[in-house]
């Protein structure tokens, strides 16, 4: 359904994504995992068309996202939903208006129908009764659930999730993760989840893509990833501090820096 071909994204000298080829299958939950700075969010934003690649292609069926007209991009996006890492609720609108927003914008539905649909979506995420709340009155977990309800409002074919469980308590994280899994199965939508929550990610994934330094280092089902021979994959899923993936990102010698950088340590 979605395919990337030698997809790269550079930010000045930093290579966020390096010639990546991935394939996202329809009606499945694809989980993209990797450490901080591995290129997960960049990949998600590229797939959503929020950023342009430095090189390479993104194919939605036969449509290439490169050079797509704005009209066609918006047409494509009317089939998409996205849950942002920090929810990105519209601050000036209530919970009800945030969830109703896509319906009001893109449909001619009667207010009563919209009300019913919003109530259904809020019930799905367990927030019925919070319609009048403003985003500033919600906890992080509640805001994320409202963002989830908003992303589902138009019954999209593809939903992008950027770190859906980060910053949530274990119960909220579990609820969000199971919601993603359940809805993907029940509504036949295609979910693309970016996370570094290994437990939740492997639990809901039909297909896992593991990134490191902008490259795919492993992919397959959760079981394939769990039993991978790659030491980097094992270090990541076990969360071990020692291994081929270094904790420190510094490239220069610590001692050299201490001795020679002015204003740090003076050795007499």
């Amino acid at each position, binding site marked *: 359904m979605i395919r990337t071909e030698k997809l790269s994204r550079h930010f000045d000298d930093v290579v966020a994504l390096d010639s990546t080829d991935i394939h996202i299958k329809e009606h499945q939950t694809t989980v993209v995992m990797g450490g901080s700075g591995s290129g997960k969010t960049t990949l998600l934003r590229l797939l959503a068309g929020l950023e342009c690649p430095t090189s390479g292609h993104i194919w939605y069926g036969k449509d290439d996202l490169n050079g797509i007209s704005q009209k066609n991009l*918006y047409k494509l996006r009317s089939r998409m939903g996205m849950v942002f890492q920090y929810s990105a609720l519209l601050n000036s609108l209530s919970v009800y208006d945030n969830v109703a927003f896509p319906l009001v914008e893109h449909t001619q539905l009667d207010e009563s129908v919209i009300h019913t649909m919003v109530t259904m979506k809020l019930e799905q995420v367990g927030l019925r009764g919070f319609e009048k709340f403003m985003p500033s009155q919600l906890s992080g977990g509640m805001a994320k659930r409202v963002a989830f309800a908003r992303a589902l409002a138009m019954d999209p074919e593809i939903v992008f999730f950027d770190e859906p469980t980060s910053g949530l308590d274990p119960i909220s994280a579990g609820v969000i993760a199971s919601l993603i899994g359940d809805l993907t199965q029940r509504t036949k939508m295609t979910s693309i989840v970016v996370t570094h929550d290994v437990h939740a990610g492997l639990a809901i994934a039909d297909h896992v893509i593991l990134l490191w330094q902008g490259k795919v280092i492993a992919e397959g089902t959760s079981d394939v990833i769990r039993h991978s021979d790659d030491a980097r994959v094992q270090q990541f899923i076990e969360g071990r501090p020692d291994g081929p993936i270094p904790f420190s990102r510094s490239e220069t010698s610590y001692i050299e820096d201490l001795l020679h950088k002015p204003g740090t340590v003076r050795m007499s």
Partner: protein
Amino acid sequence: MNNEPAQQNNAILFFGSLGRWFLRAIESMGDATVLSVTSLAHLFAKPWQGKHIVIQLYALGVGSFVIIAITGAFTGMVLALQGYYTLAKFGSESLLGSGVALAIIRELGPVLGAFMMVGRAGSSITAEIGIMRVTEQLDALQMMAVNPKARIILPRIIAMIISLPLLVSMFDIIGLGAGYIVGVELLGVNGGAFIGEMIAKITPMDLYAGWVKALGFGILIGVICTYMGYRATPTTEGVAKATTQAVVAGSVGVLILDYILTSFFL
């Protein structure tokens, strides 16, 4: 000791940074123009943004009325006070009405009104759009197939263009009224002379010039403040810097445009 090469080096560095600053300024002006034109191109496109223009008219226009009224009132009062004591030295107190009216309608109304709008409404536009950028609300709109240029930029520019001439008209009326109270009621200038001189000296061209200036300032402030917010670096520091730059660029821009427009109308 010969330090000529060092001086030459400093001169090259100075002109180099000046040139880079100039090029960046030109680039920003071009970018702001493209952003505004592509946003305004949605004015007659579907979906019609009328409701959002009205919301912004209320927020920017009605919301700024009190500060404009206070500024207009005190400007008129100070002008009457200063004008009276200057004119009294020549026995020309009767010219006070025309002096106050000409100063307010031609210059102070549009310029001070525009300054107040930059500070009150322009800064809030930049900060609001900048925060929407930081919190990914603009991206969220994009993902919901809603064009932020049509939904966010366009209504604010249009509201600024409509509201500033109206607010400047209010400024003028309140300023003249306040000048009348100080000149006639407090300082004892003849009321008939005050109003008669005002009517005799103010031509339709003066009123027209004031409105054209207000319109020009409205466009300028709308373009600068929306641009600064939309292109703000998505950090808290970036939004703060963009807001400051919007107020500075808007205020300086108003003064430069005022000089250009005044030279056309004289």
